[in-house]
């Protein structure tokens, strides 16, 4: 009896916490890193006052947000207004349950893992739309509308990118997809080479999907103040913030897992210890992608809305459709061989 409770209840919760708590911590450090990077790119110092090198800045911000009042706008829809941040956060966290960190290091080794991820990332948009509508504010509603149209458009391109990956890997299971990229040639076996255009499109769609610069018209602070979360304050705003950054880190991990061999080493296995897979490789790859998010934000001006739509519908979707056919040919004629795993 005690063993069963331990196995069925306590261990899963411990495992979940072992993913969620480091994730929340990673979000805090990511925010600090973002401000530092953008500071350096602007030839500023970035946060440097609180704690050594300003490392505690993010925690000070969290405490500040938590002790602030959550203001409910007049005539706002009370229930949906408070529900929206949760609807944004829950899918962002739930998606992490199928992310494999190593050969056996995965919370739920689901067969339809890729589909599950697609479902979870598409649910996040409800938080944004409802926040915009329930706030009873024009700016918030405009932001929500922009976000809804943008997320749906880029989801199509993203879905087609995933189709290319699963055509090559022959599986929806994320662990199988990573193992399909293993082999004697190390970096040469990764899906990023046969699927290079799709890889680029996937990451750009990921940036658009998370409403980050240069696709951040949903927030567009120079046009609609802060978009969908303009009315939110205190801890409700903190939840949106957490969801957005958790999604950014998720997209970074997914790009590494789907196209860059996940935890596999870039060096051939015959090279000894450096060729062995480890979750350090996964973290290093994800860190590089997460850095790209910040680099984009510091470098590119915001896209105009019609340009975003044009890029999604008229450029990305045709290219990915063609590449689905190319991936099919690559697989059918055996030009790309996949590793079977350990």
């Amino acid at each position, binding site marked *: *009896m005690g063993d*069963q*409770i331990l196995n*069925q209840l306590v261990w899963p919760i411990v495992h979940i916490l072992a993913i969620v708590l480091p994730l929340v911590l990673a979000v805090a450090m990511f925010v600090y890193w973002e401000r530092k990077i953008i500071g350096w790119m602007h030839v500023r110092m970035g946060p440097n006052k609180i704690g050594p090198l300003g490392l505690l800045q993010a925690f000070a911000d969290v405490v500040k947000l938590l002790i602030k009042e959550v203001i409910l706008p007049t005539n706002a829809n009370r229930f*949906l207004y408070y529900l929206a941040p949760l609807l944004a956060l829950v899918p962002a966290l739930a998606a992490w349950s199928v992310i494999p960190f190593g050969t056996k290091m995965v919370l739920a080794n689901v*067969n*339809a893992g890729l*589909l*599950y991820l*697609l*479902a979870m990332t*598409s*649910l996040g*948009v*409800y938080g944004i*739309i*409802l926040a915009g*509508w329930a706030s009873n504010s024009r700016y918030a*509603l405009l932001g*929500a*509308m922009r976000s*809804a*149209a943008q*997320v*749906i458009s880029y*989801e199509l391109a993203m*879905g087609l990118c995933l189709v290319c990956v699963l055509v090559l890997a022959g599986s*929806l299971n994320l662990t199988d997809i990573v193992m399909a990229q293993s082999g004697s040639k190390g970096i040469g076996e990764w899906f990023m080479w046969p699927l290079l255009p799709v890889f680029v499109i996937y990451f750009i769609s990921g940036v658009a999907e998370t409403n980050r610069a240069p696709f951040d018209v949903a927030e567009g602070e120079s046009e609609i103040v802060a978009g969908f979360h303009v009315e939110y304050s205190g801890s409700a705003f903190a939840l949106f913030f957490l969801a957005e950054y958790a999604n950014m880190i998720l997209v970074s991990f997914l790009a590494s897992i789907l196209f860059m061999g996940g935890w596999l080493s870039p060096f051939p296995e015959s090279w000894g210890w450096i060729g062995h897979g480890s979750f350090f490789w996964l973290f290093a790859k994800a860190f590089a992608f997460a850095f790209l998010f910040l680099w984009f934000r510091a470098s590119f001006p915001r896209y105009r809305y019609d*340009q975003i739509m*044009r890029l999604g519908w008229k450029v990305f979707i045709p290219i990915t459709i063609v590449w689905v056919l190319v991936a099919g040919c690559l697989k059918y004629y055996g030009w790309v061989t996949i590793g079977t795993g350990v």
Partner: protein
Amino acid sequence: MINPQLFQLICFYAFATVTVASALAVITLRNSVHAVLALVLTFFSSACIWLLAEAEFLAIALIVVYVGAVMVLFLFVVMMLDIDQEKMREGFVKFLPVGLIVALVMLGEMLVLIGVRAMHARVLGPNPATEAGLSNTAWLGHALYTDYLLPFEIAALILTVGVVAAVALTLRHRGGVRYQTASQQVAVKASDRVRIVKMDADTNYGRTPAPAASEESK
């Protein structure tokens, strides 16, 4: 601890209750945005029921396609509508008899169908996916792309025709609309917009005043 089958049954009834309750809410709630959200919940809990029945592909496809995309667009449209709530409820009594008749006819038809089905009821065979030793998604893929390839392709063709028809019906070219051609914008060179002029540097500036300026300074 707890019987897995009993637990599954409890889950089924819980999800089914949520599905029916939210479906009722769709047609009874007065606020149309709330009604759309209730519809989202209906889809979501139907997907949960399908997951219980080990039809994971259908369940997740329902969430990806309907909850993730179709309902978002639906919500989008409903939020933009300016609905007069009073006007909506005006004809309730007038249309009630017609509605009741339609509902009764539909109920009768359903009951007849259920009765016919029950007469030659067959016990469902074992799950073909588990028999073939495949996951639900893999089995469905095999079935669709081998035995049912033609119906599948025809369905895809019909959907494509539908999309083209919808675009053709709603696309209107209005006169006087200004728009930019992206390829022209991209093809612009700096020399089209800016003229760089070469000038000699004014080396005398600030040193000895030029003869013309010295006249004025007096």
